[in-house]
């Protein structure tokens, strides 16, 4: 891996631009894939990416490459790109140097990129799966990653973040019933491989012999997975500052208005103890802080990066992430929802573990109709009968305006900590 002289790039770039920013990602990862209950392949990857952004007369240009030795080419492309882009109205500049607040990076020294660690977790996942022997484990994977990201700019910002990650996934089948579970975390102790294995084989076996469903309205409980993919995914797009600026959000013009049930609040908590992100600064070097997006049902804030914040005449909320070409995109770091908590599975309901096709929901209107997977009729906290096949349909925004009820228990995803959610009178098509 070549050493990149960041100061050299910044000072060279300043000859041609008003501001220069360099973002570098160094990483090593390793993954073990399993088939037939044994390791079928081992993949090691060592990589480095460098992204350069420049600003000249409020025009922003960007370029990226996987070859750090070509940083000069990258800089030249970014400068050419800036000439073509429209000037950013109200551009206030890349972030200035600040004192970073105390806090830990999402890094765990116990995660070492070694086959031995990956093999241990694969074995433990398999041990968990054996709890339901009628399920056949089809494939499983363990991935380990460590790396460092660095953001530096000509305003004096130069921050580094150490990263680690362990990701596990497994799928199983029993007759024609499938099960899948996965988890990932920057911290080894938060991963429970036996539970992932047990849950995978449980969903495959428990979902067999499902019953047909009558088309009508049911009380439905969405699992943490279903809430994350269907509700949080669409809501994140709606409060994305870029979508708001370009008129691609139903929340345009509704700031300070009630958009949800007053019992519901949604916030982004970058350093949430239960979260996986732990970002003290975003990928532009803006310091992060908690953002109340919806407070007591009232829309309080959108999420911004430096560019969209300038255009909206506000300040960045520190929600810049970095895409493959080096441009920033906006996303939450760790979204949380608060709403009345209850035992959501106590009263009779249809429980939906997974939905197929969550990405086909209408991002503007919130309308969705998706297929369910691993669904059950449940009551008194127990699964009574698996559902053979059904679709659920509704509107994400209507759900959040209604009587939302969530579980106390949560699951941590990459950018959210998510509870189960109970929804009254949802249309189910059998």
């Amino acid at each position, binding site marked *: 891996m070549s050493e990149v002289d960041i100061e050299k790039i910044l000072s060279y770039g300043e000859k041609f631009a008003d501001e220069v920013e360099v973002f570098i990602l160094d990483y090593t990862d390793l993954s073990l894939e399993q088939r037939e209950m044994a390791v079928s392949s081992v993949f090691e990857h060592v990589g480095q990416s460098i992204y350069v952004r420049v600003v000249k007369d409020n025009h922003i240009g960007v370029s990226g490459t996987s070859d750090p030795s070509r940083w000069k080419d990258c800089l030249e492309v970014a400068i050419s790109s800036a000439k073509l882009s429209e000037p950013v109205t109200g551009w206030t500049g890349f972030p200035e140097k600040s004192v970073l607040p105390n806090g830990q990076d999402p890094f765990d020294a116990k995660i070492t990129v070694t086959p031995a660690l990956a093999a241990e977790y694969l074995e433990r996942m398999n041990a968990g799966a054996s709890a339901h022997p009628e399920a056949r484990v089809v494939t499983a994977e363990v991935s380990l990653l460590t790396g460092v990201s660095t953001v530096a700019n000509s305003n004096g910002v130069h921050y580094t973040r150490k990263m680690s990650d362990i990701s596990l996934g497994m799928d199983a*089948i029993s007759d024609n019933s499938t099960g899948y579970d996965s988890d990932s975390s920057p911290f080894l102790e938060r991963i429970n491989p036996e539970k992932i294995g047990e849950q995978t084989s449980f969903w495959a076996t428990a979902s067999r012999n499902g019953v047909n469903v009558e088309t009508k309205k049911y009380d439905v409980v969405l699992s943490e997975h279903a809430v994350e993919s269907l509700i949080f995914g669409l809501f994140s797009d709606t409060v994305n500052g870029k979508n708001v600026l370009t008129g691609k959000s139903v929340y345009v013009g509704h700031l300070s208005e009630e958009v949800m049930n007053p019992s519901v609040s949604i916030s982004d908590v970058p350093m949430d103890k239960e979260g996986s992100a732990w970002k003290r600064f975003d990928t532009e070097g803006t310091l992060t802080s908690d953002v109340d997006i919806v407070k007591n049902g009232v829309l309080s804030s959108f999420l911004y990066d430096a560019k969209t914040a300038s255009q909206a005449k506000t300040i960045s909320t520190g929600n810049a992430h970095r895409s493959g070409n080096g441009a920033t995109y906006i996303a939450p770091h760790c979204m949380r929802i608060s709403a009345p908590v209850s035992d959501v599975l106590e009263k009779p309901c249809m429980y939906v573990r997974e939905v197929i096709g969550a990405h086909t929901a209408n991002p503007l209107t919130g309308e969705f109709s998706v297929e369910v997977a691993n669904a059950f009729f449940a009551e008194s906290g127990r699964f009574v009968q698996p559902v053979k096949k059904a679709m659920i349909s509704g509107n994400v925004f209507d759900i959040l305006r209604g009587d939302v009820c969530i579980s106390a228990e949560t699951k941590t995803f990459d950018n959210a900590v998510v509870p189960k959610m109970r929804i009254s009178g949802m249309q189910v098509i059998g």
Partner: protein
Amino acid sequence: MEKIRYYDIRYVNGTTTSIQTENGVIENAGSSFFGKAFFRVLGENGWGYYCASPFDMDNKKAKEACIQKAAVSARLAGVHAEIADVPFGTPRSWICSAKEQAAAPLEEKAGQLLQLEATAKIPEICSTSARYSEQYQDVIFEDCNGYSAKSSVCRTLFTVSAVANRGSDMQMNYEQEAVVGPLSLTDYIPYGEKCAKRAVELLDASAVSGGRMPAVLDPAIAGVFAHEAVGHASEGDAIRDGVSVLGGKIGQRVGSPLVTIIDDPSMHGYGYEPFDAEGVAAGPLELIRHGIMNKYMHSRETLAAVGSETGEAGHARAEPGLPPLVRMSNTYIKEGDASYDEIIAECRNGVLLIGSRGGQVDPGRGAFQFNAKYGYLIENGETTKMIRDVSLSGDILSVLHNITLCGKERKMSSGMCGKGQSVPVSDGAPHVYLTEAIVGGGQ
């Protein structure tokens, strides 16, 4: 030295140039570039992979070192694998490197994109955007037996989208064209207006009441059915692993005699590949022939595992720097002999679903779901009210048996397919009539 039974190297050198416009201004424009070498070694008991980026393919010592790294990884594997000995074929030599397009100034393309986007600015449209991208990838494939192949492929696409707004109601539409080779934006200037008009029409569309009913699928959504429901379930890895409802069905009837479904990497569609990620140049493969399961798509490994009589290799594809997976390329339902009017009349009362907003499948369970951009009610054999937010789900085998008419004209649509990795594909079909489908809607 580690025991090496086989190795290959796939090096991809690529450049992607893109332009994004929003509401009449250039949001960003620029390029990124990369070079990634993927080393794959088959040891005694499985595979070892190593990816190096950047990498110099002329550096023999570095090559040897990377092969050894992959070989060390392969030693840790414990599932014996074989690769079928197949003819490599002749790499397709369709010239699609689009040198003239690459040489044209970015400013010129940006101007054309703005012009295209501007045509979407019609009354009730509150937001427009457009994106243009050209991607050049030069591939070098080498294996331990001295075989090598090279290709140079350009893929170009544009997307234009429009948001319509009336009171508190908002609706969105997008139009896209994606091709292998060059694409002249000036030929597509009217697409902006076409896109916007549909978004405005959607403001007046109704939600549909879901349930089981007859349905007509237009070529775009029927193509997604061919891809999602049949294609994924015909991939050799799903067959090998026993997680496809189409597994073990070669020679058996799986659908109506009208159904013939083909995957063809040699077709000049968005999924075109001169040769696959294992160096094999494949041609058209009939997955289902007249309703009978005919062949599965394979990599060399899955062909060896499942049996050479079950299909053909040449269907392994990979993102740069990642391992080959069994994937589709250009997948379609073959034309029938029914006219559009005959199909609508035969349906009598049901829905016509048009365009695709994507879909997903669980091949093990045989369940699929996909969403239409919009549609129309069919009442008394005629299309009537426009409908929106309508989706289709079902189980693969039932739907294949429910196809009773296929239209005369096939159209292909382009997009990306995600299966752990994202690769360009196209899919298509003629209009298709299903006697019963599960239709989801918000009413």
